[in-house]
Each structure stands twice: as C-alpha cells, then as structure tokens.
C-alpha cells in the first residue's frame, strides 16, 4: 500500500531543493567575477541578474519550507531527481541571456547536457561566445560531474543519514569515508589535485602549440573540467580538433581515463593499497572492453579505407573510442564524418563503447564496467555450476576494493540497471527514427545522450525538432541519475494522486 505524501514531505523536499538552488547561485559568482575581469559588462549584468533570481528562489524555498526534519529515502531520492531539473532551469538563465541560444529550451538543453556531463551542444556561434558564458558552461559540467548534491553536501548540508540517501540518489553508491560529508570533500580533493596537474599540463601543451598564454590557460581549465568530468564541452565549436595538437590529445585521453576511474579506487590507491589498481574488477573489465570495442571500431574504419597513414588511423580511432567509452565526447573529426566516412561498423563499435561506459562512483555515465563485470561473472558462475558435480559447492567472487562473494542481489541490481539503460537507448532511437533519421544515426545519438557521452553524428543542432530536444533532455537526466531516483520521483507523483490517506 502506497501512502499519499503529507504536507511535511513536500516541505522537506522544498527545503533541500532551496539549499541546492542557493549553492548554484553562489557558483554563478565565479563567471560573474570572470566577466568583470574580462571587462564583459553585458555578461556581468546577465550573471548579476541570474544570481539575484537564483538566490531569491533558493531563499524563498528554504524559508517557506523550513524544517529541521531529516530526509527519508523517498525525500532524498526526490530531491536528487528534482534538483537536476531545478538546476537546469536556473542555470539556463545566463546562457539564454547571452543570445547564443535560439530559445529557452535550447539553453535548458545546454544546461542539462552540462550537468549530466553529456556535452551535446546547441550553442549558436560558440567560437564568439564571451569567456564568462563559456566558462559557465564548463563550470556547470564540472559541478554536474562532481554531483550537485555533492556540492551542497560540501558547503550547505549537514552530514546526516538523510544526506547520505540523497548522495546515493545521485547515482553515487559508494561510501568512501565513514561520513558522507568527508566523502564529498575527498571527491573534491582528488578533483582539485588533478585540476592543478591537468590544467598545468594542458597549458604547457597549448603554449607549445602556439596559443597565446592567456587563451592557453583559459582553454586548459575549461578542457580539464570537461575531460575530468567526462563531459565533453569544449571552448571551441570544433572541439579538440580546433587545436591540431597531438600532445593535447594525449593529455585529454589521460584525463578522460582518470575521470572514468571510481573515486573509491582513487581513495584506496592514494592511501597505500596500490595492488588494487590491477586487481579491481572495474579496471580489468574496462581494459578488456576497450580492447574489444576498439578492435570492432578499427575493423570498421579500416574497411572504409578512410586514412592514408597508420598514425592518423590510430590516433583518430583510439581517441574517439576512449572519448566514447569514458563518456566524454571530445572529438577530433567533424560530426558528419561518422556517417559519411566511418560507416556503420565503426559507429557500432563506438556506440557499444558508449553504451558500456566507465566505472561506478566516477563521473561517467552508461551501464558501467562494474555491472558488465558482475553479469559476466554471474554467467560464468552459471556455466560452471552446470559442469561441476551436483554435490560440489562453487562460490564466485569478485574483487572490488575487497573480495566480495557474488550474491544474487548484486546480479539483480546490475541486470535491472542494464535493462533500464537498454530501454532508454531504444526509447531515444525510436524517437530519432520517428523524426526521420536513419537507424544508425538515431541509435548513435540516442546512446550518446542517454549514456552522457556527447559524441554527435550531426543530429544534435539548434534546428533539430523540439520534441527530440525534450527526449534527449529526459534521456540525459535519467541516464545520469541511473533511474532509481527518477522512478521514486514518478512514484511520489503517482502517490500524490492515487496514494491512500
């Protein structure tokens, strides 16, 4: 029996949504300062307006819904799901005011693409976008990758049991440290260390490649945020192709791979358990998956005889495979080249890599290698059970931080998430085909949106049908949150109308 939510339930949700909205308003102060530093007065005015509006909305929510009650699972999941929608609407405001988006829907698409770390973009004339707006796009992506709830946990929310439930609702199911606030802070520590290392390396590569120092540093910070959070936005419309810099490509591949590693794995390796790097089921599965999908993609590209030399063939093929597998979406070719030059087999290889994704509790999207590893082990267990004598007992173990006995509950949840993702991929593919695109185009773009990748074969553009934009927004949202929080939110809406009093 499902009970109809009480007024207090809505107040708890509203109170925490208010806190999260205030966090976003505070974050907008960074691009505001950048606008002042670059003398972008229009940008400064737009951000001032957006900050005022966002803080006002957040404060109103917090005052009207003020409560001292902690979050139950239903509230936490609903807050996690709703906070991404609220964040999308308020964060789209400065983007819309910039004049680089055809409608508020386009600006909202861009904001959700950023928060979900997808990287699909509907910006018009991105190459001439002012630095403050461009930085905001990348900051949105960085916040989304870290997790909106993680940001709120770091600064504004106490580390209660309810806060942990909210953190879980944001598709982060690993408690790295004993306290969830400490966990959130550790996630920031890892990201800040790599921010310094990654941005520094990219700046040097940029200056070495001929960029003016200020441009090199600005672009490096933006690209770091997009690479580390496996997002895929770039300051230029041609993505990484703009730089024509092999060193840039190698550094971004490294950052993409590092961003796809589980934060819990970072923690154990950084605190002395270094053997975990080659024993962990995620690392092993990721390596095997890259080899398999890369082989399919390479076969497809070779068949089409696109590249004249082994170096461009290897660098382009490997770059896009890693970009897809880690869910980043950086590109060194034009979107239509996937259709016109790479062909169906190579696109299938990249699509498969995108559909699998990186590690759980990382910044990547999609099914995740952990779940693929579990399902493979479960399959192996079933086959072995058939081969050994009936009286023998066979225990299947997996290694993730510690040895874990593979129980049915792990297999069940992995299978549920896998099936949910496959359904989401199909939903977007059908929507794309109904809008007149071919199967391979629609599948590629749908998986890219739902798995939060951002590689495009050319469908995503300001002129695409509005219905498809809404479908992709929903896919990015549900895909990033891994369904559970979204399902609970829908359940709560249904309970509002049909639940027992």
């Amino acid at each position, binding site marked *: 029996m499902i009970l109809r939510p009480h007024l207090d339930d809505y107040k708890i949700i509203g109170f925490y949504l208010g806190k999260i909205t205030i966090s976003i308003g505070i974050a907008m102060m960074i691009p505001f300062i950048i606008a002042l530093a670059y003398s972008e007065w229009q940008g400064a005015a737009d951000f001032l307006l957006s900050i005022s509006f966002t803080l006002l909305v957040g404060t109103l929510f917090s005052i009207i819904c003020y409560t001292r009650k902690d979050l139950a699972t239903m509230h936490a999941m609903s807050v996690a799901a709703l906070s991404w929608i609220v964040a999308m609407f308020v964060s789209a405001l400065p983007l819309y005011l910039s004049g680089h988006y055809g409608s508020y829907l386009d600006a909202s698409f861009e904001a959700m693409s950023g928060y979900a770390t997808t990287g699909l973009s509907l910006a018009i004339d991105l190459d001439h976008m002012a630095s403050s707006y461009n930085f905001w796009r990348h900051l949105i992506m960085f916040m989304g990758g870290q997790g909106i709830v993680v940001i709120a946990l770091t600064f504004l929310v106490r580390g209660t049991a309810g806060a942990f439930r909210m953190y879980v609702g944001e598709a982060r199911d690993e408690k790295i440290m004993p306290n969830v606030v400490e966990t959130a802070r550790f996630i920031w520590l890892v990201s800040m260390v790599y921010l310094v290392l990654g941005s520094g390396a990219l700046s040097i590569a940029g200056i070495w490649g001929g960029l003016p120092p200020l441009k090199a540093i600005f672009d490096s910070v933006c690209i770091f945020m997009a690479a580390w959070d496996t997002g895929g936005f770039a300051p230029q419309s041609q993505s990484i192709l703009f730089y024509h810099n092999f060193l840039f490509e190698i550094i971004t591949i490294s950052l993409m*791979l590092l961003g796809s590693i589980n934060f819990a794995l970072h923690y154990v390796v950084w605190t002395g358990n270094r053997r975990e790097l080659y024993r962990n089921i995620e690392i092993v599965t990721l390596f095997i998956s890259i080899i398999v999908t890369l*082989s399919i993609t390479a076969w497809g590209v*070779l068949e089409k005889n696109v590249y004249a030399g082994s170096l461009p063939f290897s660098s382009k093929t*490997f770059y896009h495979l890693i970009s897809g597998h880690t869910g980043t979406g950086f590109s060194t070719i034009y979107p239509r080249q996937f259709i016109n030059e790479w062909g169906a087999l190579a696109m299938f290889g990249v699509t498969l890599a995108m559909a699998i994704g990186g590690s759980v509790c990382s910044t990547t999207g999609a099914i995740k290698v952990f779940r693929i590893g579990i399902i493979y082990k479960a399959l192996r267990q079933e086959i072995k059970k058939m081969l050994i004598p009936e009286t023998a007992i066979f225990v299947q173990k997996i290694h993730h931080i510690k040895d874990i006995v593979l129980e049915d509950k792990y297999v069940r949840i992995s299978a549920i998430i896998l099936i949910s993702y496959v359904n989401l991929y199909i939903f977007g593919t059908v929507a794309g085909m109904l809008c007149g695109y071919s199967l391979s185009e629609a599948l590629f773009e749908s998986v890219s949106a739902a798995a939060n990748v951002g590689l495009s074969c050319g469908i995503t553009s300001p002129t695409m049908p509005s219905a498809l934009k809404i479908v992709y927004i929903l896919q990015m949202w549900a895909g990033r949150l891994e369904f559970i929080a979204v399902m609970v939110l829908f359940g709560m809406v249904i309970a509002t109308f049909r639940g027992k009093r």
Partner: protein
Amino acid sequence: MIKTPFRTIWNAVLGISLELVLVYIFIFAGLAICFIWWTVFK
C-alpha cells in the same frame, strides 16, 4: 585518513604516479592494437 603528513603525502604521490602509469599502459596498449590492425589487415 591522515596519520602522519609525510606518510600521507608520500602515499598520495605514489598513488597518483601509479594511476598515471596505468593510464599510459591503456594508451600504449590501445595504440599498439591499432598499429597491429593496420599492419595485418591493411
């Protein structure tokens, strides 16, 4: 997490270095596969 600052920093530096080594193993393995495919099937 923090017991002695030196030990903590040393472990973190070693951890980051090994993560970078792992990443470059991935990169070299990937590029090697591409070169092998090119050489064998081109």
